């Protein structure tokens, strides 16, 4: 297998192992996701807004913010242990570094989403029997886009003073197109609408992913260069 892919997997595995040992990011993100779902439920007027109307937005707001918490933690943990500088001194091409970080972040965020989804089904009483594959697919499509942007912005934010604040401030505008698309598709999936009604949004998500994963990968070199 090409060297850089191997390096990327090594870097990703290192991050994931470190997180499995300390579990802080996953834990905080999971608690956060649960809280958001609970608040959404109590914040709505049951006579005015049905659970099914609110569900897609509740799910995606939860995913979005939990993902940000997870991405934030992954870089801060590394900074605290000074591992990032060590990583940069080693002759690792920035593409491998980016791919490794992206994979690790995707693993974190996927884990959080995997925990949040059953909670969502529980609290909002949705029937996912037919929609589940679609929801998982949409989640993957939307998540890749904003996690790629979050990975590169995280690498920048961690070098600033207010890192925890800087990442959300930079990232939120970039999360909006994938979020709009994801919510639109999810609500149609839950209503068992035909695929044709979602194609426009799915195309938007796919193009967004291609553009921003590529862009983030190319720009990463400029962020980590000394």
């Amino acid at each position, binding site marked *: 297998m090409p060297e850089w892919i191997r390096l990327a997997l090594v870097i990703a595995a290192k991050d994931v192992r470190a997180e499995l040992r300390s579990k802080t990011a996953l834990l905080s993100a999971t608690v956060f996701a649960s809280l958001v779902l609970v608040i959404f439920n109590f914040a709505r007027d049951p006579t005015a807004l049905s659970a099914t109307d609110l569900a897609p937005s509740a799910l995606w707001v939860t995913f979005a913010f939990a993902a940000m918490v997870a991405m934030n933690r992954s870089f801060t943990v590394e900074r605290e242990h000074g591992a990032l500088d060590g990583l940069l001194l080693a002759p690792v091409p920035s593409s491998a570094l980016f791919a490794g970080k992206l994979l690790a972040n995707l693993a974190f965020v996927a884990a959080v989403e995997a925990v949040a989804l059953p909670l969502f089904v529980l609290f909002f009483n949705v029937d996912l029997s037919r929609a589940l594959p679609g929801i998982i697919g949409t989640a993957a499509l939307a998540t890749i886009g904003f996690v790629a942007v979050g990975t590169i*912005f995280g690498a*920048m934010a961690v070098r*600033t003073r207010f890192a925890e604040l800087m990442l959300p401030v*930079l990232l939120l*505008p970039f999360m909006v197109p994938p979020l709009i698309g994801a919510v639109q598709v999810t609500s149609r999936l839950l209503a068992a609408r035909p695929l044709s009604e979602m194609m426009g949004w799915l195309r*938007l998500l796919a193009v967004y992913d291609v553009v921003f994963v590529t862009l983030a990968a190319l*720009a990463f070199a*400029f962020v980590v*260069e000394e």
Partner: protein
Amino acid sequence: MTILAGTAPIVTLDRARVVVRRGVIISGVALLGIAVVVVLALGFTPVEARQGLAQKIFYLHVPSAWCTLLAFSLVGIAGGLYLWLEDPRLDRFAAASAEVGVAFATVMLTTGPIWAKPIWGTWWTWDARLTLTLFLFFLFVGYLALRAAVHDRHERARFSAVVGIMGLLLVPFVHLSVYLFRTLHPQPIVLKPSEPSLPWEMLRTLLISTAMFTLLYIGYVTIRYGIALAADAREERDVG
């Protein structure tokens, strides 16, 4: 050696002074031009029958939206060029354009609701132009916050450039999302302010206003660039 090293920054400080002065003159002319436009809009342009006097906000609102978009595009383009050429002038320009862009975005985002309230009965509408400008505002703010938080000049320039380019590429996606969203969720049919078949006097006033606003953008960016130039000159002199 120290004497020779001392002369270079002083020249740059003088050059900064020249740049600032030029910017002040351009801005002054533009502001006067805008004052003329105001007179033109209020006294020599017909009143729109259905919207009344409030429609005249249009002559400030649209040019400031244009300037916001112009400012932002140039931030992105200058950033891209900086990553390629590493010329500090591009970074200084990007920083200037971003700050000036915030000023115009603020004008747009305040005149927008003030116009919307009497016409549409609501302070905010998620129409394409307002929503996009709101996004640009947030992107600008993030950009400037990042710049303020990074201390090394070269790192700051690189980081800003990356955010600038990515932000610029985000714009079509935001626009498309809003457009798709609105075609699926038809908004109530409203009076469509301006847009095609503008009477000649209104078009004339709009074009002159846009020209004056663009001139003001150039003037402000020039002053702001001069300030950045002076700050860099100072830093070099104090360090060297």
